[in-house]
């Protein structure tokens, strides 16, 4: 059995996945930690926790691929890949019929067009604005004085979703306050907020363009309200795996197993190559 790992250092949370190849490929363990200010430490923590969860000594992990915005801060990584490649690859591993990935993370939103082998065909990315990111939702939750995990379920109970014209995190904050002051219901406000963000994210995603199956990845996939709002605007169901949050790390681990093969092969070829050059 050969073991490799993927570490996805996101802006908000760092994810690690340990994967084994033994005939087929399977996920042995996952770990999730807050990224915080010390990116290097977060990567290390996530990796070691995943190893512990997998009951595999870290020294037996043959190859580690880092991804996410903090990927170059991973001191123990053997290679780095963009989160775009890793999300596409991870989504393809979990759901091979994936042709479009919608990734909503802590600080950015992306849409990726995926080929039949899990390769990236095209992508669009929004990293200029917090709309559609976890930060946006965390901010909305803060303003309403509720927990981030309550925002989605509460929005599902909306009966008359309020029309929200702006998706700017700062403007929505004051909008929410004035709607609350007008006596509007929290669920109707949140219903409107989720719908506005879904529309904006999909108008970005349509530039790739969107082909079925659509797989949603990233931490925001855990928000049931956002999933439903996206499906409503999209007019079709999406694939939302319980591992959606780990998709980047899963993709990185798949790449790590493949890279391990290559480095194994190249090390086998080296003596032959050396003797060849000796003639």
């Amino acid at each position, binding site marked *: 059995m050969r073991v490799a790992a993927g570490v996805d250092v996101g*802006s908000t949370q760092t994810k690690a996945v340990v994967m084994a190849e033994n005939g087929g490929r399977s996920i042995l363990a996952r770990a999730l930690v807050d990224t915080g*200010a*010390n990116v290097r430490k977060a990567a290390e923590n996530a990796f070691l926790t995943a190893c512990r969860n997998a009951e595999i000594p870290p020294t037996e992990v043959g190859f580690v691929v880092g991804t996410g915005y903090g990927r170059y801060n991973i001191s123990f990584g053997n290679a780095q890949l963009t989160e775009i490649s890793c999300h596409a690859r991870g989504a393809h591993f979990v759901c091979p019929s994936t042709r479009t990935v919608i990734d909503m993370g802590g*600080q950015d939103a992306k849409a990726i067009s995926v080929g039949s082998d899990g390769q990236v065909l095209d992508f669009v990315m929004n*990293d*200029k*604005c*917090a709309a559609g990111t976890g*930060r*946006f939702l965390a*901010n909305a939750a803060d303003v309403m004085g509720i927990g981030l995990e309550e925002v989605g379920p509460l929005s599902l109970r909306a009966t008359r979703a309020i029309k929200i014209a*702006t*998706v*700017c*995190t*700062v*403007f929505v904050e*004051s909008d929410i*306050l*004035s709607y609350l*002051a007008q006596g509007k219901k929290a669920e109707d406000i949140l219903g409107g907020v989720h719908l506005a963000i879904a529309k904006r994210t999909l108008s970005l995603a349509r530039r790739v363009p969107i082909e079925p199956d659509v797989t949603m990845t990233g931490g925001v996939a855990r928000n049931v309200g956002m999933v439903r709002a996206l499906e409503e605007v999209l007019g079709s169901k999406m694939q939302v795996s319980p591992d959606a949050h780990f998709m980047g790390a899963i993709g990185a681990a798949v790449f790590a197993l493949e890279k391990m093969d290559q480095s194994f092969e190249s090390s086998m070829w080296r003596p032959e190559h050396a003797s060849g050059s000796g003639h």
Partner: protein
Amino acid sequence: MRVVAGIDCGSGFTKAVLVAQNGSPTSSILGKGRAKSGINMEEAAQSALQSALENAGLGRSQVDYVATTGFGRYGVGFRDIQVTEITSGARGAHYLFPGSRCVLDIGGQSTRAMTMSESGKVRTFKTNDKCAAGSGMFIARAAKYLEISIEDVGTLSLQATNPQPISSVCAVLAESEIINHVSAGVSVENILRGIHDSLADRALAMLKRVGMEGEVTFIGGVALQAGIVKALQEKLGAKVNVPPDCDYVCALGAALLGHKRLALKENSASIQEVS
């Protein structure tokens, strides 16, 4: 003598200015006052007006007319008239700097640029209606995270030795960039000047889009910060006019426009009486 109150209901603060006119077009500013804006715009407007009245030593009954402006202008029930903050800002800036043809107004949640005619009429304008990028909120959030008071931002920024650029457009995402700078050991002064540089860049782009020419007058609460004024002047390569009460200019403009309206109304009333 007629006294008109101009009340600017902004996203952060509500400002009131009392202006007197005595038949002739010369106006005099009697007093000013402000209050924090909240959910209830009417309440904030009342208390800003009250503080302006105390400042001027006048009673409420001495106010003949009330003109409101700013995003909460419709929320004030006791108003006689409301004008947009674009019109009032241009009018106020023109009163203070008659030679100015271009106004930059950066407030708590808004950025506006307008050009105006010789008489202070708005010709062209641009606003950030879609998002808070480039507005005072950008600075307010940074100050909150850095745990410094907003009043100190301007002077601290002037002490920067090696400004660190902030590339984010989004006021919310900029926070993470600031966190990175802090953990990399960048000084507060250098971070703040970086923020001011970034805002000045955005403001300049807006001024260019609006067709900036001649003297620029910089108004709004953010103009109180010396650091951004310096950054803007450096990028512009010219001095900009910053009135001492730069945050009261829209309220002043509203009061002046209120006077004009009041005079028209009284004129037409006297014509009706005659006929």
